[in-house]
């Protein structure tokens, strides 16, 4: 999967969690949590969705890697290389 495709995937999952999420002003290097009103349960939803869609197992220690849009893409790029 390309970096752009991974980015779209994350945004699509977030939109499913919160249809009011506003991506227009989203800064990719700033924590998603602060910008989009996401809480720890929402991050768990992202993890579950990634497992369902792409059979990805993300261990709990790695959850902090999902903090910003950029860090998500960096973390997922090697894992989704063949997807």
């Amino acid at each position, binding site marked *: 999967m390309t970096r752009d495709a991974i980015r779209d995937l994350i945004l699509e999952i977030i939109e499913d*969690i919160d249809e009011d999420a506003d991506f227009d002003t989203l800064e990719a290097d700033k924590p998603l949590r602060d910008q989009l009103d996401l*809480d720890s*349960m929402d991050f*768990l*939803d992202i*993890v*579950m969705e990634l*497992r*369902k869609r792409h*059979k990805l*197992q993300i261990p709990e220690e790695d959850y902090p890697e999902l903090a910003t849009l950029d860090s998500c893409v960096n973390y997922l790029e090697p894992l989704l290389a063949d997807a």
Partner: protein
Amino acid sequence: MPVSFSQTADQYDVVVIGSGLGGLTSANRLAYCGYKVLLLEYHSQLGGLATWFKRKGHIFDVSLHGFPYGMVKTCKKYWNREIMNSIVQLKNIIFDNPQFQLKTTFDRVDFTEKLISYFKIPKTTIDAFFARVAGMNFYDDQSMTTRELFNEYFPGRSDVHRLLMEPISYANGSTLDDPAITYGIVFSNFMNKGVFTFEGGTDKLIKMMTVELEKCGVTICTNCKVDRIIVEQGKVKGVECRGKVIAAKSVVSNSGITNTIHNLAGRDAFSDTFMEKADKVRVNNSSCQVYIGIKEDEGFDDIGDLLFTSKAAEFSSTELCDLHTKSKTFSVYYPKTRPGHNRHTIVASMNANYKDWEAFSDEQYGQEKESLIQRTLLDLERYLPGAKEKIDWIEAATPRTFNRYTLHTRGTSFGTKFEGLDISRNIFKEVGGLFHVGSVGIIMSGWLGAINYGVIVSNDVDAYMRSND
């Protein structure tokens, strides 16, 4: 609708033991993920402590006194919009004790205002306190206690400590000596927007959840007490219930964590190191309640939704649990609580210790219950003059009642102290496929905590099942 036990298959992907909010949520999530799920409940009704009962035309809610706004998002994401839409705010929260009397909406804005004008605390201190508790996470350092936290921001102000602590002690049994993070997380949840309830009552919620479970294909059996979780070679094999063995790849126990380990799986299923930690898990206090039904033609005007009352000079966690405590809450249910059901009811709740009640003979037990009822009526008189003449039903529940009903160790109302969380989260690393869901660690209790924990645990189950495929 629940099906008869004879209709159960011999094998499921997941068996969920117990239908408290944690068990219901796990069952629902896992069935939604496509697993074949069987839910076994000991009682005749689903919901666990989220329960209700009917007497003389009244419907009494046992644990519907209030939950944080977070329930709105949680119900929308993990149950459905219809359930979410029944959540409404309780706006009149009242405190009445020898130190202060006030009415609040129990949110950050109103608390800040009260702390400034009534308690004369500088705004900078209040803001700093709120920022501190809002930033707390469950994985933070736990060495600081709530008492230390309060003394840092409000030294010598036992009145402020009472305002901040009393409601949370009722909400989850925590004390000033528990880790400050458990206080901070729960208090911040409430302060977000105030206290909320479920319009239509607990019966309506559980009915709506049952419909959702059926939509997802969960097989539900009530009056089914699981006697044993079968563990072989470090892995879960299934459960034994009413003499029948049902095989399962995973078992999610919503029975208390102490019960799950000691009575269902058995100590032998676990390593010595795990048991050493598990033996240190302390359960929380239990409760007493008095259920009061008002005559159909009596009614009364608004006296508040939730009243925190006490005649004790200062707040103390020990006093709150005393057999003859002078502190109690009154939850007042108006006809608007259950639209279409034109009744007023009142439920008085107290924290209590099982050990104070367990040793009583039948006769003493009856007398203590009666005296609990009389003390409650006397206290209610202050808020509802002539209460005695207005009622047509009154009865009491004690720690023994809660123990009998849920089988929880010492009738615990709010699961375990903080150390229980670690044991609960890691039990599947000890016994493959065995999971625990339900009130643990103070933060994972209450309606919101139990539902969210149900989601967290179903995520663990799903990860486990997939990695074993």
